Each structure stands twice: as structure tokens, then as C-alpha cells.
């Protein structure tokens, strides 16, 4: 595969310049044996790294503080699994979304000065991903933290008493049933959409003489006085595939074995997409978020947590029927 360069002769015609292609894919120049060996080595390395982080003696964990009113703690990165129904003890039916926390680690700590001058920040990474298709700069951050590379990185603004050492794993037990949570994710992309779907315009009637006008935006604004269309006018365009947040979702149940959060209602994003979960900022829900596991839930073995944590009002399926 030799890339030839056209010799520049003195002609006024537009030249086509072929550049040297410098990047190759990771196993282009490797034999099959080498490639399979690398894959094996990488998975073993990941396992080693995760088990290292679970053991607090090898690390020197940063000091843990108590929860104070007004302190902000980290959130999690989770995978949206799907939805299922849930019943209260009185028989009311609600729907919940299941969010699974897969390999969530704190990757970097940015102090107040580094971040913005007001609050410190913690960068948290989500699902594990192979290092072969990522650029070097991206992988460097993870190497410094001693953690396998992640698919999604998010920043959480955090108060100073809630900082965590990079490399600590985060679990679903960080949130408890009865707490309220905000979930941010990229919405499902709908492509180029018309004004009725995108902005909820009413359109025009289907009959009674309408000529070729049923889903159009109609008028674009007032007439001759401004003599222009204002900036931000709602018009057709690309819809979806943007970050959106749903606020104030109640956590009904937490499964500590598989690290799954059962969160009320629906959440933006498609199935198996990565979402950012954090404590709710709604002022009416601050009461419910008191005394959480602070700065996070550590699985050292201090407290024995049952496999499933349920909210008070929730109907548990193994309950015997009351007569």
C-alpha cells in the first residue's frame, strides 16, 4: 500500500493532493497471535486494577467526613436497562426505570482553583471499554488513576468535604430508597423533524379547502414593523440527540448484588445508554435527601447491607398475602 504523491507540474489546473495516511488501526500490523494475546492481557489487567481498588489497605484513602446540610456529594454513571411496573402497598401501580451501575470509578479530582474557583469537581467514569480504539490522550487520564478506560466521563460539582480519591469504585448503594434523584442523558435522536413534532405546533385542518397546508408552521411573526424574523424562532430542524435532565425522580428500590437502581418514571435516552445520576436539586425534595451515605457508599465490609433495599411504600413480591 504505497501512497504516491502527484508531482507538481506547472499547470493552472486544480491539483489533487494526496496526503500520507498516518493512523492505522491497532491490529493492522500485528499477527493474529499478537492481537489475541493483547486482548487477553488487557482483560487480565482490568481485573487486576478493579480488584486492587477494592482493597483499601493498598491505597491510602482520603479522610471521610460526615454529612452536613448544604454539602454536595458525587453522583453515578449508570446504564439504562429498561422499565418495569411497581406496586405500592395500597395497590397503586407506578412504572420504574432500571439503571445499572457498571464499573463506576472516580477518575480525577479537580480542586477549586483548577475547576472554576467556587466548587471542587470530581470526574467520574462509567462503563469499561477497550483501549484499542481510543486516542492516547484519553487513555492517559485513566492510567494515572489506575483504572480501566471508560466509555463516558462526567463532571460532578462537589463540596470540599465530599472529595474522594481517584480510583475508588462507586456502587448503586450510594443512593437509598426514598431519595430523589436527577437523571441526565442524551435523548433519542429523531433526525430532521417538522414543526409539529419538534415544537408541538397545532398545524392546520385536514380538510375544508386547505391547499397543501396541513403540518406547516404558518406565520413566522409580526409584519412590517420589525420586518424580520426574530432569533430563536421555532422552525423545523434536527430533533433529539441532546442532553436533557429529568428532575425529582424517586428511588424505589436498590439491588446491591447487581448494582441496579429502580428510579420512578421514565428517563431520557434509549436502552443501554449511559446516564448521569445525581442527588436532586429541587428545593421541595431536600428533606428526603437528608443523611445519605457520605461521601459515598464504601464496600469495605463495615455495614452488612441486604441484597435488596425497598422503599417503605413499595410492595415486595415475596410478601405473604394479608387476608
Amino acid at each position, binding site marked *: 500500500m504505497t501512497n504516491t504523491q502527484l508531482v507538481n507540474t506547472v499547470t493552472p489546473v486544480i491539483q489533487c493532493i494526496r496526503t500520507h495516511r498516518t493512523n492505522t488501526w491497532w491490529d493492522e500490523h500485528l499477527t493474529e497471535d499478537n492481537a489475541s494475546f493483547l486482548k487477553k492481557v488487557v482483560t487480565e489487567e482490568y481485573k487486576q486494577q478493579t480488584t486492587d481498588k477494592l482493597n483499601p489497605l493498598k491505597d491510602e484513602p482520603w479522610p471521610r467526613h460526615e454529612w452536613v446540610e448544604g454539602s454536595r456529594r458525587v453522583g453515578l454513571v449508570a*446504564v439504562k*436497562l*429498561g422499565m*418495569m*411496573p411497581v*406496586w405500592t*402497598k395500597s*395497590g397503586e*401501580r407506578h412504572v420504574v426505570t*432500571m439503571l*445499572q451501575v457498571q464499573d463506576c470509578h472516580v477518575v480525577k479530582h479537580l480542586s477549586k482553583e483548577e475547576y472554576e474557583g467556587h466548587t471542587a469537581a470530581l470526574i467520574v467514569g462509567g462503563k469499561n471499554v477497550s483501549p484499542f480504539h481510543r486516542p492516547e490522550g484519553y487513555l492517559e487520564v485513566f492510567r494515572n488513576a489506575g483504572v480501566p478506560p471508560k466509555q463516558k466521563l462526567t463532571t460532578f460539582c462537589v463540596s470540599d468535604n465530599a472529595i474522594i480519591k481517584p480510583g475508588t469504585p462507586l456502587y448503586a448503594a450510594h443512593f437509598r430508597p426514598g431519595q430523589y434523584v436527577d437523571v441526565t442523558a442524551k435523548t433519542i435522536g429523531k433526525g430532521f423533524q417538522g414543526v409539529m413534532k419538534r415544537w408541538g405546533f397545532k398545524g392546520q385542518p385536514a380538510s375544508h379547502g386547505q391547499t397543501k397546508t396541513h403540518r406547516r408552521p404558518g406565520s413566522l411573526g409580526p409584519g412590517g414593523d420589525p420586518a424580520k424574523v426574530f432569533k430563536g424562532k421555532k422552525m423545523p430542524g434536527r430533533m433529539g440527540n441532546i442532553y436533557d435532565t429529568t428532575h425529582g425522580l424517586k428511588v424505589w428500590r436498590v*439491588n446491591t448484588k*447487581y448494582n*441496579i437502581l429502580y428510579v420512578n418514571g421514565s428517563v431520557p435516552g434509549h*436502552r*443501554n445508554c449511559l446516564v448521569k445520576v445525581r442527588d436532586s436539586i429541587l428545593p421541595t425534595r431536600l428533606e428526603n435527601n437528608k443523611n445519605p451515605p457520605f461521601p459515598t457508599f464504601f464496600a469495605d465490609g463495615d455495614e452488612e447491607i441486604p441484597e435488596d433495599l425497598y422503599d417503605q411504600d413499595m*410492595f415486595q*413480591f*415475596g*410478601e*405473604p*398475602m394479608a387476608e
Partner: protein
Amino acid sequence: MAAACTSRTRQMMGLLRILRNFSQNERLLSTSVLRHNVASDGPPKFTPPSKPVIIDKTQKEASLRRFLSPEFIPPRQRTNPVKFSIERKDMIQRRKVLNIPEFYAGSILAVTMTDPHVNGNMNRFIGICIQRSGKGLGATFILRNVVDGQGVEICYELYSPRMRKIEVLKLEKRLDDNLMYLRDALPEYSTFNFDMQPVHYEITGDVPVNLLKVKMRPKPWSKRWERPKFNIKGIHFDLCLTPEMMEHAQKWAEPWRPYDMLKEYDTSSLEEHIFKEVQENLRK
């Protein structure tokens, strides 16, 4: 005549002699056997009486057929199988508390639910199951009955905490999986008495199929049931539609559908796996 008498008497005598000999021989045989035992073992071995077999008639026997409820089979989607396995755990936990029997579309069920607005708190409804839909915990079934001349359909959720008892009064299958056409059939096909007693059904062997073809009310119907997309075999079309109308309905036939490879969903291996899992966990 005298000769016949004598021959008969001779025969009788012969028989008597044989009988006497036989009885003597028997006695000889029996005594010899006893003596034989006494000689070899000592006192005869004590065989305890067989244990009494307790037949519990209060609970219905569980079906011995290999039946997996359709809501356990996950739909063909790009979801993580972890989600389905966790939902299945919840479903099995609920099934340990509430017995959900085997039933199909076309069986007659009696369902008892808690209802805060009723005096005795319980609400019992009997009807024919016309549809079973939904997967996982949100599985539902619709029961239809005609009460005081008014057709009533109630959609129940199998795993709702308000369900108290589900009894199968008559277990049978029909020619179709979806009996929504009973809404347009004559009301006699949907009426069932509320005092109906359970009909005995076999717990082994095949489920009986009712080959009933239903007579319909005059058209218009709520849906065009003669069209091939519904694929209904349980309606007696000859009595309500002319052959021309049947041919006209065939215009909406889609003969390529059975060959559509993207719609193929082979659940046999999944079913076996899930069936084993469910049986194991229910026994725990």
C-alpha cells in the same frame, strides 16, 4: 338315559375326587412351605404395614404438563438479559405466594381481587379469557362475560398485589390465540354463569381443543375479522359472508409474511432454559 346319568355322575365323582385331591395337595403344599421357612430363618421377618397415602383434596393438583407461561419468554429486543433475569426472580417470588395456574385463551377463569369499595373487600369475577398479553411483570389477561345483557371485559394484571385467587373453572384451548371477535359474536358464546362449578381436567396429556365455530352478529363488526391478517379460524364465515366477500378479503393477504426472515424468532432454546430455571426456583 341310564347311561347318560351314570356318565354324568361318573363325571361329578371324578370332579369331586380331583377337588378333594387338590385341597389335600394344597394343604400339603402350604404346610411344607411353613416348615421350610421355620427350618431356615427362625421367626418370620416383621414387615411393617404400608404407610398411609394422604391425598390432599383441598389443593388442586399442579399440572404435570410441560407448560411455561408466555410472559416468561422475553421479547426480541436489544435489552440486556440481566434485566429479564431480575424480572423473572420477582415473578417467581410472587408465584411462590400466589398460585397462578396454567390457562390459555379460551379457558374459563374465576378471579378474586381485593377491592376497597366492596363491603367484604373481595370481588369475584368469572369469564372466558380472550387475550393474554404483556411480558414480564406487566403481563395481563382479559376476561369477558355478559352480565344482565351487558358485555363486560376486565383486564387483570397477573402480578398485581390485589390479586387474591385465580381458579381455572374449565381448561381448554380454542382455534385462535386471540378471541376478540367474541365482541361481535352472538352473546350466548360469551355468557357464563357466576355459579359455575369447576370442570375436572386432566393434569397430563394434551389440553383439549374446542373446535367451536362461532356465529356472528350481522356486519358491521368492530374489526374486519375476515381479513387474513387476523387469521381467525374460529368464526363460521359461511353463515355470514358470501364467497365473493371472502375473496375480496383475500386482497389484503400478504403471502410473503411467512418468508420474512427478520420476523423469525426461534424461542425453543430460550424456553427450555427458562423452564428449567423456573422449575428449580419454584421448588426452593
